[in-house]
C-alpha cells in the first residue's frame, strides 16, 4: 500500500524522501550493478537513471513501500536494456554470461541470460558494497584515486562535488576517476572482498581512506565549501555501513567511534574569528551528548571483542575527553596509559609526543619535558612545529620563561600564518612580558 499523493508539497517532500533514500541506496545499487555487469560507468549511469525516474514518478504515484527495491529494479532493467542495445552486443553478452553468478550456459538466448543475470525477485538484493569498497581502496591505486572512487560510487557524490570538496577543477577530478577505472580494468584489479589472509592489511587500507576523508572534512576551515565540510558525514556514513558489513572487525567500530567522538565537538571547536579552540577551552555545553553516548556504545562493542587496535585506542582516548564534564576532571593517567599502548602498537613519534603531553598532565610538566627532550634527541620529529610548541608549553608551565620564549620562536619559524601562528605569537608575548 503506497502513500497517497500529497496535494501541495508533493514534489518537495518527495525530494526529501529521495535524498534520504539516495544516501542509503546509491552505493548498494551501484555495487550490485558493477558485480553483475562488470561495467562501472554503466552501473553509475543506470543508478542515476533510476533516481531520476523516482523524482519524476513518486510525486504523482507516491513513494513505493520498498523504495530501495523499486530503484534496484528500475536500475537493472535499464542496464539490461542498454546491454541489449549496445553496439558489441554479442561479445558483451558472452562477457555477461561469463560474469553470470549461477553457471549460466550459452549466451544464445538473450532473455535466458539476462534472467539468470538478474534474478526476478526484488526482495533479496544482496549487499555487494563490501566488494566495492575493497576494490575502490585497492593499494595498487593512488590514494587520491581511492578517495575519489569511494566518494563517487559509495557516497554518490557527483564529480563536480568531489572536485569542489578537494579544491581541484572538475576536469582534473573527472580524469582522475576515468584513470582509476581504467587502472582497475587494465591492470586486472579483481572486484571482490580479499581472501582471509589479506584481509587485515586490506581492511586497514580501507579504514585509512575513510579516516582521510573524515580529516579532510574535519580540518576544513570556516567559510569553505559545504561539500568539503560534509565529507565528515560521508566518512561517518561509510564507516557505519562498514560496521554492518564487517560486524566481527573491532577496528572498524573503533574508527567509527573515533570519528563520532571528534564530530560531537563540532559546535565548540571554532570561535567567531574562525580560530581553533583548544580542548581545554571549549564550551562543553556545546558538545553533542547524544552523539557521545552513541560513540561510547560503538566503542564498548569494539572493546568487547578483546582485540585492541590503533583506532580503538585512539577512540578510547577521544572518549576520555568526551566523557569528562569539565577539562579539569579529565582522566589523564588513563589517557597516558592508552598512549603507552598506542605507542607500542604503532611506534609513531607523533604518538610519542602526544603521550608526553598526556604524561605531563598526569604527572606534571617536568616528567613530560623529560620525555619530550628524549624525543627531540632522537631526531624523529625534525621541523615538526608541535614538538617545539609542546616543549615551549611545558617550559612555560615550569616557569622557565626564557627557555620557553626560545622554544616558541623555534615553533613560530616552522609555522605559516594562520590560527596556529596567532596562538603561538600570543603565548610568546605572555612569556616575554
Amino acid at each position, binding site marked *: 500500500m503506497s502513500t497517497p499523493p500529497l496535494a501541495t508539497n508533493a514534489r518537495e517532500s518527495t525530494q526529501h524522501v529521495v535524498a534520504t533514500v539516495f544516501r542509503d541506496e546509491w552505493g548498494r545499487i551501484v555495487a550490485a550493478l558493477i558485480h553483475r555487469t562488470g561495467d562501472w560507468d554503466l552501473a553509475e549511469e543506470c543508478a542515476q537513471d533510476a533516481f531520476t525516474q523516482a523524482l519524476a514518478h513518486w510525486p504523482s504515484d507516491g513513494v513505493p513501500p520498498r523504495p530501495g527495491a523499486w530503484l534496484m529494479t528500475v536500475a537493472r532493467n535499464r542496464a539490461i536494456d542498454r546491454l541489449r542495445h549496445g553496439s558489441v552486443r554479442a561479445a558483451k553478452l558472452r562477457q555477461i554470461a561469463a560474469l553470470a553468478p549461477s553457471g549460466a550456459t550459452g549466451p544464445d538466448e538473450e532473455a535466458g541470460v539476462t534472467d539468470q543475470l538478474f534474478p526476478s525477485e526484488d526482495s533479496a538484493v544482496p549487499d555487494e558494497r563490501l566488494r566495492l569498497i575493497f576494490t575502490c581502496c*585497492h*593499494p*595498487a*591505486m*593512488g590514494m587520491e*584515486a581511492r578517495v575519489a572512487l569511494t566518494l563517487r560510487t559509495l557516497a554518490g557524490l557527483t564529480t563536480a562535488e568531489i572536485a569542489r570538496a578537494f579544491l581541484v577543477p572538475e576536469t582534473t577530478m573527472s580524469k582522475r576517476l576515468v*584513470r582509476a577505472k*581504467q*587502472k582497475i580494468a*587494465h*591492470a*586486472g*584489479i*579483481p572486484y571482490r572482498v*580479499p581472501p582471509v589472509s*589479506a584481509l587485515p*592489511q586490506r581492511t586497514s587500507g580501507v579504514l585509512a581512506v575513510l579516516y582521510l576523508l573524515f580529516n579532510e572534512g574535519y580540518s576544513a576551515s570556516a567559510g569553505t565549501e559545504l561539500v568539503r565540510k560534509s565529507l565528515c558525514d560521508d566518512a561517518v556514513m561509510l564507516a557505519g555501513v562498514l560496521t554492518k558489513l564487517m560486524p566481527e572487525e573491532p577496528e572498524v567500530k573503533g574508527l567509527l567511534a573515533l570519528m563520532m567522538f571528534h564530530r560531537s565537538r563540532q559546535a565548540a571547536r571554532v570561535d567567531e574569528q574562525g580560530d581553533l579552540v583548544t580542548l581545554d577551552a571549549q564550551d562543553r555545553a556545546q558538545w553533542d551528548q547524544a552523539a557521545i553516548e552513541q560513540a561510547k556504545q560503538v566503542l564498548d562493542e569494539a572493546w568487547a571483542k578483546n582485540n585492541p587496535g590503533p583506532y580503538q585506542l585512539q577512540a578510547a582516548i577521544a572518549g576520555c575527553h568526551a566523557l569528562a564534564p569539565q577539562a579539569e576532571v579529565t582522566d589523564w593517567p588513563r589517557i597516558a596509559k592508552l598512549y603507552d599502548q598506542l605507542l607500542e602498537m604503532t611506534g609513531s613519534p607523533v604518538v610519542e609526543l602526544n603521550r608526553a603531553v598526556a604524561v605531563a598532565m598526569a604527572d606534571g610538566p617536568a616528567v613530560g619535558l623529560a620525555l619530550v627532550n628524549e624525543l627531540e634527541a632522537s631526531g624523529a620529529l625534525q621541523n615538526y612545529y608541535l614538538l617545539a610548541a609542546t616543549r615551549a608549553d611545558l617550559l612555560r608551565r615550569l616557569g622557565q620563561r626564557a627557555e620557553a620564549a626560545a622554544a616558541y620562536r623555534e615553533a613560530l619559524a616552522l609555522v605559516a600564518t594562520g590560527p596556529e601562528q596567532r596562538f603561538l605569537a600570543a603565548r610568546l608575548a605572555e612569556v616575554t612580558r
Partner: protein
Amino acid sequence: MVDVRQTATTPDLDHEMGQTWQHDASLTAWLEETIPSGVNLQGSRLRPSSDATTVRSRQGELIVTDGPFAETKEQVAGYDVLECPDMDEAVRWASKHPTLLAGAIEVRPLLDSPPPMPLPEQKEGTLRYMMLVCLGEDFQMSPQDQSEIGLGTDAWVKEMDGRGARVFGSRIEGPDRARTVRRNGTDLLVTDGPFAETKEQVAGFDVLECTDLDEALEVAANHPMAKFGLLELRPFWRPEEP
C-alpha cells in the same frame, strides 16, 4: 649466438596515440621483417605506466604503490627479445623500429636462456604482466646476499614455472652494457648506457601469467629481489582492447 633484449621506450603515450601505434603500418613492417626470419623471438606492447603497480617488501611488510618504479619522462612501452650474433646487429634492428619517431630503444644482452619457442598459448581467463626487477645502482651485494638471492631466485622460478604463473624471464646485463638508440631527424644516435639515468635500473624481467593483479602481486612479493629492490608489474596491451 648472443641473445639480446630490446626495450622500446617512448614518452608515455595517450590512449589515442596508442591506438595509432597498434595499427601503424611501419610497426607491422618491422615485425614482418624480424619474426619470420627468427630474429624476433618474442615481444609485446605494454599498457602505459599509469596502469603500472610497483611492489617491494621492507622489514617484512609488503608495500604496494600505484605507478612505475621510476617517474621518468620516458617510460617503457614495449619489449622484444631478439636473437642476434652480436650487439651491433641488435642495434641495427633497433634502429629500424618505428618507436624511434617518438622515443628511444634500449638494447641489453640477456644473461639467461632465451624464451621457449613457441611461447605457450595464454591460458583462458588470465592476464599477462611484464615484471621488471629493479635494483638500486648503489646496491651492495655481499657474497652471502648473492648466494641467498641466487638460490631464492632458482626456487622462485621453479615454483612459478610449476604453477604456470611464469612464462619465461631472464636476468639482463647491467646498464653499463646497455646501448640506447635514438633518432634525430635522419640522424641515428647510438649511445652507451640506459635510456634514463634512474636511481634504480632494470636487472631482469619475467613474463607472468595470472588470474588477476592480486595473484601477480603475490607472485612478485615472493621473489627474493622484493626485499632488496623494486618490482614493477606492467600489464600487457591486449590485442582486442582499443
